[in-house]
């Protein structure tokens, strides 16, 4: 799976992108606010300078006035010193103020008025000082009394006061702006931090969820792996079992087919020996008369009888093997089967034997519907019930009972009898081909149960027996409740 096509990658990348965006937003906002703050700070500094310069100008003018007044009163040159010192300060202050105001367009008019008023004041001061220096003190006082200087000074005071209060207002305003900007910065940073935390938490959640999914997937994989191993083991067991069955089958078949062959060949040789004795007698050898008589009357008929019996036995064995082989190849046809009806049919088919043996067969009146192969199931039930009837104990009335049990996905059929029972060492042997157990007083070839087990396994189930010698036996047939056509194919491939 390509990394970017996974929902996990898309989600984490989106969250990462949003986080970076929030961080960028904070940086941009902080930069903007910092620029604003430094602009405000510069303005505050300038307004402070304006106030200071305005104060300096006023002070310098007052100094100049003080010097003038002192000189006019005393006519001593040393009182003129503050006046002389103040003049350059005033001019310097005015220039500075103009410089400060040059940065923005307001105030030019007032600066001009201020300059005019300052010039008027300074000219009044210079006039009076000049008059006093030339000894015309009265004329100088008259100029002072004319209030020309006072009026100019008042105007200067008013203008400077306006500038100062305006500057103060602006400082207050800018400080408030600064405060707002820093608050805003705080909010933006806080909000940004919150967003980053939210995105980081989101990313963490996605990662945790994804990891949990991975862990769950890994767990599922482990479970699947384990069940796979289990299934492999199961299949291996069934294959091993099938293989063992085939080997056992091949062994039994070869052994059982060999025995009649030994007889056929053996008695053929005996025939030859007998024929040789007859030939010599007929050829004129009278000493062979006894042997020839025995050969003609006993040995040769006996040999022929054994050869015929062995040939018939061999024919029977081969037919039985062919029948089993054909059954193994027949296609199974799963269909819903009413077990109650099936058992009833079985009961009807053995009714005659039951009556003869003074026995009863009890079948259930309720049973689940099973989906299986009808013919195979009939053969299984009929064979086991036939055996139960065949091997009843002679000393008590026979009781045969069919029971049905149900577990999830499986159906069990138990066929119990109170017959002779089967010795422990024979309980597996009876399912082998051509093998029988107990007293051999009933006809049979030892094929029935081998056939039944092969059929039960083809249907996806098995048959087992529990028994107590002399008390009875219970054959348990375990079958899947629903036979799938593919299961039967698979199994027939294994057993072929």
């Amino acid at each position, binding site marked *: 799976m390509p990394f970017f096509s996974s929902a996990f990658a898309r989600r984490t990348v989106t969250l990462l992108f949003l986080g970076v965006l929030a961080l960028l937003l904070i940086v941009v906002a902080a930069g903007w606010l910092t620029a604003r703050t430094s602009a405000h700070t510069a303005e505050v500094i300038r307004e402070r300078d304006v106030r200071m310069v305005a104060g300096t100008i006023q002070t310098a003018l007052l100094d100049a006035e003080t010097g003038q007044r002192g000189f006019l009163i005393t006519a001593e040159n040393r009182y003129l010193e503050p006046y002389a010192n103040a003049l350059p300060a005033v001019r310097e202050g005015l220039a500075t103020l103009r410089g400060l105001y040059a940065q923005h367009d307001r105030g030019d008019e007032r600066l001009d008025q201020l300059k005019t008023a300052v010039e008027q004041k300074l000219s009044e001061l210079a006039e009076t000082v000049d008059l006093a220096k030339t000894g015309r003190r009265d004329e100088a006082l008259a100029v002072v009394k004319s209030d020309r200087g006072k009026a100019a000074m008042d105007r200067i005071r008013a203008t400077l006061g306006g500038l100062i209060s305006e500057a103060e207002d602006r400082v207050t305003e800018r400080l408030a702006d600064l405060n707002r900007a820093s608050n805003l910065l705080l909010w933006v940073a806080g909000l940004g931090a919150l967003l980053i935390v939210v995105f980081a938490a989101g990313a963490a959640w996605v990662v945790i969820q994804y990891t949990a999914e991975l862990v769950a997937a890994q767990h599922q994989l482990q479970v699947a792996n384990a069940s796979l191993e289990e299934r492999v083991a199961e299949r291996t067991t069934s294959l091993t079992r099938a293989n063992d069955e085939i080997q056992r089958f091949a*062994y039994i078949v070869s*052994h*059982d087919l*060999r*025995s*009649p*062959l*030994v*007889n056929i*060949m*053996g*008695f*053929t*040789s*005996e025939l030859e020996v007998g024929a040789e004795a007859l030939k010599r007698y007929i050829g004129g050898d009278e000493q062979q008369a006894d042997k020839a008589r025995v050969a003609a009357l006993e040995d040769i008929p*006996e040999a022929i009888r*054994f050869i015929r*019996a*062995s040939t018939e036995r061999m024919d029977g064995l081969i037919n039985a093997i062919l029948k089993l082989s054909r059954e193994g190849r027949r296609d199974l046809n799963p269909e819903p089967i009413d077990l109650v009806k099936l058992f009833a049919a079985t009961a009807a088919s053995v009714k005659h034997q039951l009556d003869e043996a003074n026995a009863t067969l009890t079948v259930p009146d309720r049973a689940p519907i099973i989906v299986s192969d009808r013919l195979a199931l009939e053969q299984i039930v009929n064979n086991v019930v036939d055996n139960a009837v065949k091997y009843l104990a002679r000393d008590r009335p026979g009781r045969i009972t069919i029971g049905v049990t149900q577990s999830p996905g499986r159906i069990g059929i138990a066929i119990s009898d109170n017959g002779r029972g089967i*010795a422990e*060492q*024979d309980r597996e*042997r009876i399912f082998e081909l051509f*093998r*029988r*157990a*107990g*007293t*051999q007083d009933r006809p049979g070839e*030892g094929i029935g149960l081998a056939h039944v087990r092969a059929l039960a396994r083809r249907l996806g189930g098995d048959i087992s027996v529990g028994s107590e010698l002399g008390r009875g036996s219970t054959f348990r047939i375990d079958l899947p409740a629903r036979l799938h056509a593919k299961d039967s194919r698979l199994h027939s491939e294994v057993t072929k």
Partner: protein
Amino acid sequence: MTARPVSIVMIEDDEGHARLIERNIRRAGVNNEITSFRNGTDGLNYLLGADGSGEESAQRSMLILLDLNLPDMTGVDILVKVKANQHTKRSPVIILTTTDDEREIKRCYDLGANVYITKPVNYESFANAIQQLGLFLSVMQVPVTD
């Protein structure tokens, strides 16, 4: 042979085989009585009696020829019972069967079988083997059971 003639007990399900074995033993010059049984149940009844005590075999001089593939039980079951019974345990048991499985042979010797012979499927070899067995039987000492 001793005053009490040794009797041969043959447990062999195939009547033809039993007949052929008997004839070939006779041809080797062994004329001892041969009692043969078609299945394990009858054979065991004769050897150990109906009650399984083996009292009936006391003071008998027997040699047992045993087939392993019997319809009602395996010859191994009979071997175990014979060798476990105090009256029959000294009677020689000759396993005569078609099985040539290595594990089966070992098992039989482990359980006390005295001789194990595989029946050849070829009749010439079969007849030859049985005749040699007959010669072997004619020189063999069989104890009287307790």
